[in-house]
């Protein structure tokens, strides 16, 4: 066994704050600030209704992030299963409320904010898988029976989210889960098998599982110009906005597509479009670069961790974050169908901001406590 090296006694809170990943926090602030600017522009050069609220939320969520980061990782390790089942419970509550007569609802109204359990579930599933794989060995990972429980850990929330119905989020949970399996050392054959299985089930899903609006989105994605005023409108207008931005962009507050309202949902799902229209290729690449640095930071933290739980958690949450980014940006560029996923840290929205920053809080907790033992 390894000897414990440096930390013999509990470090003080101040010491911990000093050791926070200030570089990561700086990157997060930088990206969020781009978001504030974009929201300011989306409102036609006004702080209300979006930018000011978003700044307040960011401040609150950043505070929460730091709290989460300061809490010792072993507590998170111990809280994993309770949190996981709490998440499942909340999903069930939303589902039952929906059945009772509030229609397709995805949130619980807490009074001060609307909590979307599915957003939190994305983090909790990663925690649960990290917890489960923490004590595994490579040999364990190659035994299929050992993988039954983590598969169930993924499937349970995915089924509940699918019932909402929210295909986008359930796919993200599945992809994050698959990434966790991969980093924990699952066989490559597992992925090949899964790919074959998925390919085989596409016709079945098309005929029985997908909603009409989901089918329409896929069809529209395959040929957006077929329906320029209907469902293809979003994709087409978004591509026009991006393309017309050109190399240098139209200038801050000068994006005609968004300012004249041709761009739909410019403050949420299509905010990257607004940014790239006004700031051009240069601004778009700067944002992509900042996201890349954040991914790199998360990867670096995970590699520095001494515990499996911390490694898996840090990298898992980073992958989770990057999936958000990829899916949103690929969507607005017309590379994948419109799935209704926000751009983390940039899009207007409370739960999403909270979930992302809590995730980073956990990553920083992993970093801060990279030497501490979580169990045994």
């Amino acid at each position: 066994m390894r000897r414990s090296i440096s930390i013999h006694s509990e470090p003080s809170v101040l010491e911990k704050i000093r050791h926070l990943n200030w570089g990561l926090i700086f990157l997060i602030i930088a990206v969020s600030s781009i978001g504030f600017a974009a929201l300011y522009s989306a409102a036609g050069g006004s702080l209300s209704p979006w930018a000011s609220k978003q700044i307040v939320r960011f401040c609150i969520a950043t505070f929460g992030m730091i709290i989460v980061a300061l809490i010792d990782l072993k507590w998170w390790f111990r809280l994993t299963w309770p949190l996981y089942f709490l998440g499942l419970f909340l999903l069930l509550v939303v589902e039952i409320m929906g059945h009772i007569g509030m229609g397709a609802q995805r949130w619980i109204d807490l009074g001060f904010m609307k909590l979307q359990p599915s957003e939190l579930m994305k983090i909790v599933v990663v925690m649960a898988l990290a917890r489960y794989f923490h004590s595994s060995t490579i040999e364990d990972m190659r035994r299929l029976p050992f993988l039954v429980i983590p598969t169930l850990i993924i499937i349970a929330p995915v089924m509940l989210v699918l019932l909402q119905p929210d295909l986008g989020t359930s796919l993200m949970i599945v992809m994050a889960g698959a990434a966790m399996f991969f980093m924990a050392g699952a066989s490559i054959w597992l992925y090949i098998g899964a790919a074959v299985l998925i390919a085989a089930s596409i016709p079945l899903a098309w005929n029985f599982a997908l909603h009409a609006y989901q089918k329409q989105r896929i069809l529209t994605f395959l040929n957006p110009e077929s329906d320029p005023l209907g469902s293809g409108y979003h994709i087409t207008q978004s591509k026009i906005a991006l393309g017309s931005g050109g190399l240098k962009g139209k200038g801050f507050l000068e994006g005609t597509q968004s300012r004249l309202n041709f761009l739909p949902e410019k403050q949420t799902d299509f905010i990257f479009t607004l940014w790239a229209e006004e700031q051009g290729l240069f601004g778009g690449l700067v944002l992509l670069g900042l996201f890349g640095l954040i991914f790199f930071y998360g990867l670096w933290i995970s590699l520095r961790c001494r515990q499996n739980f911390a490694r898996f958690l840090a990298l898992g949450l980073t992958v989770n974050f990057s999936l958000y980014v990829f899916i949103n940006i690929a969507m607005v560029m017309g590379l994948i169908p419109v799935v209704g996923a926000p751009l983390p840290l940039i899009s207007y929205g409370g739960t999403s901001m909270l979930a992302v920053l809590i995730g980073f809080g956990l990553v920083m907790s992993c970093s801060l406590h990279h030497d501490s033992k979580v169990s045994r």
Partner: protein
Amino acid sequence: MKKNQDHVRVFTRRAFVIGGLQGALLGVLGTRLAWLQVSQGSRYKTLSDKNRINIKVLSPQRGEVVDRFGVPLAVNTQNFRALIIPEQANSVEDSLRSLQKIMDISEKEIQKVLKQAKKTAKFVPIEIKDDLSWEDVARVEVNLPDLPGLSTDVGERRSYPFGEATAHLVGYVGAVSKKDIGDDPVLSLPGFKIGKTGIEKRFDLDMRGKAGQSEVEVNVVGREVRELNKKKSRSGRRVVLTVDGELQRFTQNRLSQEKSASAVIMDAHSGAVYALASFPSFDPNAFTSGLSAALWEELLANPAHPLTNKAISGQYPPASTFKMVSLLAALQSKTVNSKTTVFCKGYYEYGRDRFHCWKRGGHGWVDGRKALQVSCDSYFYELATEVGIDKIAQVARMMGLGSKLDFELKEERPGLVPDKSWKLGQIGKKWQPGESIVASIGQGYVQATPLQLAVMTARFVNGGYAVKPWVTADGLAENIMPADGWPKLDVNSPHLKMIKEGMDRVVNHEKGTAYGSKIEDELFAFGGKTGTGQVQRITMQQRQSGVKNEELAWKSRHHALFVGYAPLKNPRYVCSVVVEHGIGGSRAAAPLARDLLLETQKRDPGSTPVHIQETGPAGKVGFKGAGR
């Protein structure tokens, strides 16, 4: 321990794979972004401009129509309108009430505006009233401070100074109907008018002009934010006609003495039309200012079809005016020569059928010239079966009958020249020799328009050239006379000379059928041929009881026709006249033709070239109206 080390190594390796994948995906996104913004940038820039820039179409000025001397036949007059923009008015109704105090506006008009204001966006101007007098405009302008939301503007309205006289020829403009809306954005402008009939319709595209554009930036709901760019509209083409407006008016007035008639006056050599009129007519100005339903009903119900241009779309049996064709066919096929005589005993028997000459007692011995002069039917009955319908039809077509003549107006009808294969194909029966007999005097299946009859006459008297009619002077149409003249017809000049002599005698010989219409002044003397077209078959009973045609109902009476030319020597003008149900060619049509030909010769429009240029000295780029 070792196992854990393995696990860490696997994790590290896979973490790098994940990092690599993330990097690769970022690369894909960056590349896509660059492709969209740089390679496709200009394309999307255009699309983006299309999105935000609303092209407002500026109405072009419609080209005028003028006659050969530059006298306007269709012009644009100013039309002042009062408009209201709801969003600039505190209350649309209050503003309208205030307006009512200074201007005559009916309650109905106010309700119409209020209804419209509820339907359209608040920034779209609504027309309250048009055709305002200058006093009204001044009154509104002065009171504008008390009339929030109100404004006046000046639009254009088509007006036709010659009114009824040019209604059929020039036509009229009307609102764009759904089926007319095509590519031209101008058509969707509110209040835009397009040509509906006549010249206005035929050259609508040329006369319409090019719309201007005002590029305005709009938001997604279409509200204008600012004007970015403006391109002025370009006026439509001015159309110069070969007609003489005053002669046209004279013709129309002369026709109005009959119940229903039409006439064409044409240049015998060039084919330029000097007048083309149809009566009854209508006032085209009533159409452009909004025709009342009652007037429209009245026009439709009139049995004399005032909306139809009978000069080109009326198809009549040419009757005896066809006899020149039959005679030429007989001469060309050598069935007869200039000396051949036939004895007319008042009827002609073929098999068991008896064909009557119009003159009960018969004409006695007649030759070709005399057959035309006295319009003896028996002469033609005699030669018809021998010449045969196919030869007659061939000559008829050569003289311009039986098909359209590429005239500019789309209302032109083809008429009909029957032959054996036509009957077999269209009716499914074999041609009977008796039908050739009927056809030889222009009855039966034969039909011709007044325009065709004028062309036929021109070809007989111009020395045998295949002249075609045209009415636009400045090269708009392709049917005008070729530079080297019309092609020569395949006819023998002596034959034409003999027929012309016959036509001369019709008018100028005391036994001629139109002798009563002779012009005494030798300078203006004319020749021609009468025709009386049966509308209903004369029954044996009628023939025996001697019922006079004028005792029948108007609709059952004969059509009266006349084709003429003048002057006698070197004819320059030809004319055709059809008086519907006018009973007799010599009594109704010939006097009319005489008046027309006399007036035409006095005005002599063919001696002045068409004045094509809008300004500057007349005749500089002129077109010689008459040939040779």
